[in-house]
C-alpha cells in the first residue's frame, strides 16, 4: 500500500466534520485529491464518464507553460551575465530570481483560494494552478516580491472571487493582477530599467524592450534590428522582457500543444494571429509614421512583446473567453486587432496585449449573446 495513502487515512478523521481540524478541511481535501484523484461511483445517468477531469485539463496548461517558464529562468540569467557564462550558471542565476516570484505568487494566491473556498464551502479549484504561474511570467524579473503578493491577491479576490469564484469571473485573474500592478506600480512595471536584473556586466539602459524602440526618425524595422532585436532573436527569445514573454517560439509551441490536445481553443489562437497579421499589414499600407510600431509589419508584431504569451495562454482561458465557436473567432481576431492598434496609435501603452485581452474579456459575454441569438435563430423552432 502506498505509504502516502496511509498518512492520509490516519489524518482523515481529524479533518472530517467532528474532528479538531475540520475547519481546515478545504486545504486537506485539496492536498489529498492532488495526490489521490478520487473517482466516485456516478449517481446519475450517464453512468460512464470520460477520464478527463479539471486536474488533467489544467495540468496540460501547466505542461505547456513549463518550457516557457524554464526558458524564462534561463533568459533572466542570460541577460544578467550578458551571455558570458556557462549555461548552468545562467540558468541558476535566473532561477534564483524567478523561483521566489513563482513561490510568492502560488503561496499568496492559494491562501486566498483556500480562504474563499472554506468560507463558501466549495472545493479549491484547479484553475488557480494556472493563474499562479501565469502571473509571474508576465512580470519583469526585477519586480519586488511584495508587489507580486499584492498583485496576485488583487487578481484572485477582485478578478475572480468577487464574481463568485472560478467559472463566474469575467476577467482573466492573472491579467487582472498584472493590470493592477501595471497601473499601481508603473515604475516597477515599465521603463527601460526593469526588464533586466541590475548587473555588473551590462548597463541598465541596454535593458529596453523591442517595443520601446522607435519615434526618432528612420524606419522602425531597421531601428528595431539595429537595437539588437533581429526577428530571429525576437522569435527565439534571448532579449530582455517579462520573464515568460520573450520566446515567441516556445509560447507558440505551447499553443500548438494546447491546440492539438484541444485544451485551448484553436479558434482563439488562430483568430488572434490572423488579427495581428491583417491589422499590421493594414497599418503598413496606411499613411502614417514609419518610425513607430505603426508600420512595423506583421512579423515584428507577432514576435515582439507579450503577444505570443498572451494569445497562447491568457486569451485561451476558457472562463473569460466566449463559449461559442464563432464568438471565439471574433474574440481572437479582435484581440489581435486591438494589440496592433494600441501599439500603433497609442505608444504610451506599448504593450497592448494585456489591455486588449482584458478589454475583450469584458465583451466576451456580449459576443456570446449575439452569436447565441444568431445560432438560435437558425434552428427550426421546437417550442
Amino acid at each position, binding site marked *: 500500500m502506498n505509504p502516502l495513502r496511509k498518512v492520509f487515512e490516519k489524518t482523515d478523521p481529524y479533518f472530517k466534520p467532528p474532528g479538531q481540524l475540520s475547519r481546515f478541511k478545504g486545504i486537506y481535501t485539496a492536498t489529498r485529491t492532488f495526490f489521490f484523484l478520487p473517482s466516485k461511483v456516478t449517481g446519475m445517468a450517464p453512468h460512464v464518464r470520460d477520464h478527463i477531469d479539471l486536474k488533467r485539463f489544467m495540468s496540460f496548461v501547466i505542461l505547456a507553460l513549463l518550457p516557457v517558464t524554464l526558458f524564462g529562468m534561463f533568459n533572466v540569467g542570460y541577460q544578467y551575465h550578458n551571455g558570458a557564462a556557462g549555461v548552468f550558471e545562467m540558468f541558476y542565476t535566473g532561477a534564483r530570481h524567478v523561483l521566489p516570484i513563482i513561490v510568492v505568487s502560488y503561496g499568496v494566491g492559494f491562501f486566498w483560494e483556500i480562504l474563499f473556498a472554506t468560507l463558501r464551502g466549495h472545493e479549491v479549484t484547479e484553475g488557480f494552478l494556472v493563474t499562479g504561474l501565469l502571473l509571474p511570467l508576465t512580470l519583469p524579473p526585477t519586480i519586488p516580491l511584495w508587489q507580486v503578493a499584492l498583485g496576485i491577491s488583487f487578481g484572485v479576490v*477582485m478578478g475572480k472571487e468577487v464574481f463568485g469564484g472560478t467559472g463566474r469571473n469575467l476577467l482573466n485573474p492573472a491579467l487582472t493582477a498584472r493590470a493592477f500592478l501595471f497601473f499601481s*506600480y*508603473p515604475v516597477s512595471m515599465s521603463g527601460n530599467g526593469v526588464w533586466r536584473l541590475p548587473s555588473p556586466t551590462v548597463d541598465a539602459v541596454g535593458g529596453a524592450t523591442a517595443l520601446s524602440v522607435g519615434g526618432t526618425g528612420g524606419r522602425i524595422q531597421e531601428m528595431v534590428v539595429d537595437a539588437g532585436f533581429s526577428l530571429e532573436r525576437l522569435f527565439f527569445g534571448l532579449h530582455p522582457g517579462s520573464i515568460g514573454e520573450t520566446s515567441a517560439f516556445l509560447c507558440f509551441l505551447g499553443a500548438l500543444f494546447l491546440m492539438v490536445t484541444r485544451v485551448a481553443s484553436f479558434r482563439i489562437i488562430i483568430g488572434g494571429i490572423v488579427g495581428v497579421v491583417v491589422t499590421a499589414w493594414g497599418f503598413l499600407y496606411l499613411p502614417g509614421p514609419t518610425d513607430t510600431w505603426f508600420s512595423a509589419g506583421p512579423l515584428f508584431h507577432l514576435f515582439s512583446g507579450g503577444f505570443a504569451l498572451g494569445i497562447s495562454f491568457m486569451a485561451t482561458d476558457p472562463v473569460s473567453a466566449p463559449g461559442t465557436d464563432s464568438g471565439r473567432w471574433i474574440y481572437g481576431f479582435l484581440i489581435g486587432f486591438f494589440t496592433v492598434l494600441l501599439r500603433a496609435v497609442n505608444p504610451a501603452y506599448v504593450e497592448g496585449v494585456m489591455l486588449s485581452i482584458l478589454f475583450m474579456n469584458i465583451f466576451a459575454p456580449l459576443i456570446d449573446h449575439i452569436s447565441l441569438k444568431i445560432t438560435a435563430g437558425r434552428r427550426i423552432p421546437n417550442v
Partner: protein
Amino acid sequence: MSNGNLTLKETFFRGIWKENPVAYQVLGICSALAVTVQMKTAIVMGIALTLVTGASNLIISLLRKQIPPTIRIIVELTVIASLVIVIDQVLQAFLYDISKQLSVFVGLIITNCIVLGRAEAFALANPPLPSLLDGLGNGLGYSLVLVAVAVVRELLGSGKLMGIAVVPQVWLEAGYAHMGLMTLAPGAFFIIGLLVWLKNSLPGASHEQK
C-alpha cells in the same frame, strides 16, 4: 420612500448609514470617483454637497405647498442650481486651490442625483425640519463615503493624509512604493465596491437581509 413615523433622529441617521446614498442607493458615484484622490478635496466636496442638499431640501419643503406640480422638477432644479452656483463662487473666492482641484465637479453637484432625489422623494412631502435633517443626513452620508474612499486613496496612492506624509521615509527607502492605481479613477471604483461589500456583510446593514 416612506416617511412613516420616523423620529427626527432616525430621519437624520438613516441617510448617513442604513440608506447611505452612495453605498445603498449607489448615487453620486461620478463625483465620488473624481474628487477622492485627496482628503482635502473630498471634505470640501462633502461639505458643499451637504450644504446644497440641506438648503435645497429646506427651501423645497418650505415651498412644497406652493409649487405647482406641473413645473415641480424645473423649480427644484432652479433652486438647486442657484445654490450650487453660489457655493462654487464662494469656493473660488475663498478656497481657490481646492476649487481648482474640484474643477467642474462643484458645478456638477446640480446633476448629482442625491440632491434632486432627496428633494423629490422627501422634501416635497415633509415639513421643513425633517427635510433639512434628511438633506443634511444624506449629504453627510455621502461625505462619509467620500472621506472614507479618500482616506484609502490618499494613504495608498500618495502616502499622505490631509496632505501630510504619513508613510515613513524608511519604508520608501526599503522599497515601498505608492499604489498609482489609487490616484486613477478606477481605484475609487474598487474602493467603493469594497466599501459596499463591507457594509453589506456587516450584520443588519444589508438591505438584502431586510
